[in-house]
């Protein structure tokens, strides 16, 4: 009888360790996913001045559009807190979308290899931001599910794990389907 109880305790102990390690592993992945979004946003900020400089010569009459992009970028860079950042990054995306829509009117730009390369870079950066968010949401959902399902929920609540917040669109305008086609389809 004594051995049986001891064995059961041992089993529970091993199980608890496995659950704990899983929770910690997930939490670190969630943190990493969040950082990854930041990395991609930073890359986008770095790319935009390049783009604006490349198209400036050909788009002299579109000063407004270019200034809007640069201003939106400046606001996005200086954003504080996730909610604020999400809003301003959304505005930046829209300003970029307008820039590309206007650029369609300039055949010189469409034919320019440098511009097409930059456009590809920006498309890709937009995608990377999107996929980083997707990964963050996927892994956060896994983390939250692990915290809320039996038996890991007992351990999670005992150790004070907090559910990860999912990334959501805060700006209703962003929910609308974008009208600008940024892709390179021909």
């Amino acid at each position, binding site marked *: 009888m004594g051995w049986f109880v001891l064995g059961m305790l041992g089993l529970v102990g091993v199980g608890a360790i496995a659950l704990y390690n899983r929770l910690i592993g997930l939490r670190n992945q969630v943190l990493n996913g969040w950082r990854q979004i930041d990395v991609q946003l930073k890359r986008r900020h770095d790319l935009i001045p390049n783009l604006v400089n490349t198209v400036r010569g050909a788009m002299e009459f579109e000063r407004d559009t270019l200034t809007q992009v640069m201003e939106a970028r400046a606001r996005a860079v200086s954003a504080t807190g996730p909610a604020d950042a999400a809003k301003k990054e959304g505005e930046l995306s829209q300003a970029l979308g307008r820039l590309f829509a206007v650029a369609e009117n300039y055949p010189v730009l469409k034919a320019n*290899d440098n511009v097409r390369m930059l456009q590809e870079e920006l498309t890709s950066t937009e995608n990377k931001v999107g996929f980083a968010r997707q990964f963050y949401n996927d892994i956060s959902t896994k983390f939250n599910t692990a915290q809320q399902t039996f038996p890991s929920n007992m351990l999670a609540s005992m150790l004070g794990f907090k559910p990860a917040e999912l990334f959501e669109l805060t700006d209703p305008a962003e929910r609308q389907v974008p009208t600008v086609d940024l892709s390179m389809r021909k």
Partner: protein
Amino acid sequence: MGLFVAFLLFLGYGFDRFYLGDGEVFFPIGTIAALGVGSVSAFSSYYSGDRAVLLSTGAVSLARALSAATAEGEALKIRQLDNVVEEMAIAAGLPKPKVFVVPDADPNAFATGRDPEHASIAVTQGLLNVVSRDELQAVIAHELSHVRNLDIRLMTVIAAMVGAIALLADWTGRGMRSGIGGGSSRRGRKGKDGGGAALLLAVWIVAMLLAPIVGQTLAMMVSRRREFLADASGAELTRNPLALASALEKIQQAHAPTVSVKRGTAHLCIADPLGRAVGLRQGWLPDLLASHPPMAGRIAALRQMAFQE
């Protein structure tokens, strides 16, 4: 997979019982030897196989492909490939694999490497020429799913078992022809358990004769299942199953053998590189022999994911 192990165990059991020993002092020396030899060859390919595969296909790294790019827009395509691979690595939460371009006009792509940290993805020039950005993304997602699902490791283990089965069959065939061994076991059997063992012996001989074919068939069965899985998890990464469906359609239209990809890598390609006609038809024979499920079936499954059809 379980079927595979069972088949190998049955062959090995028969080999040891009827061929080597006399059924009483049972130690599976034959099975262990065959598995050992099969494993050594398979695991050497596990560690250096990616380099060998890339070398044999003539794949060149992106940097070299970029410096060789002369045509208008070619540099852009290569940059796009690099970007798309990075996007998919982010979506899968994996380190970015090395990227290669294979100078071959047939559209195809494959992944290799033993684990996500040592993975490489290669696409043919032909693929870059025909697919759009979205479709390229879908193809890369499929290949990255092979990496993420550890299919390369799985297929290595399977290759080891196919090798072991082939070896057992080969040894038996050789021994029977030259008349070495076998005698003692037959004598031992007659005295002891008669009919049941004789039946088992007959079944075993038939199985042994068919072994190489059955081994291949089972391997292909596993391979086909992993293809469906990679299609599905690829779509999970891009959230765009239709892009993969249309990429598969384009690959199917340009259906010709991918000259630079050898048979051994077939199961890691997005489409059967041998251009076998069996890959296109449905029915029991192609179902047994193809390394990839029929294209029509894959496309239909992807359409279903997007709630079309």
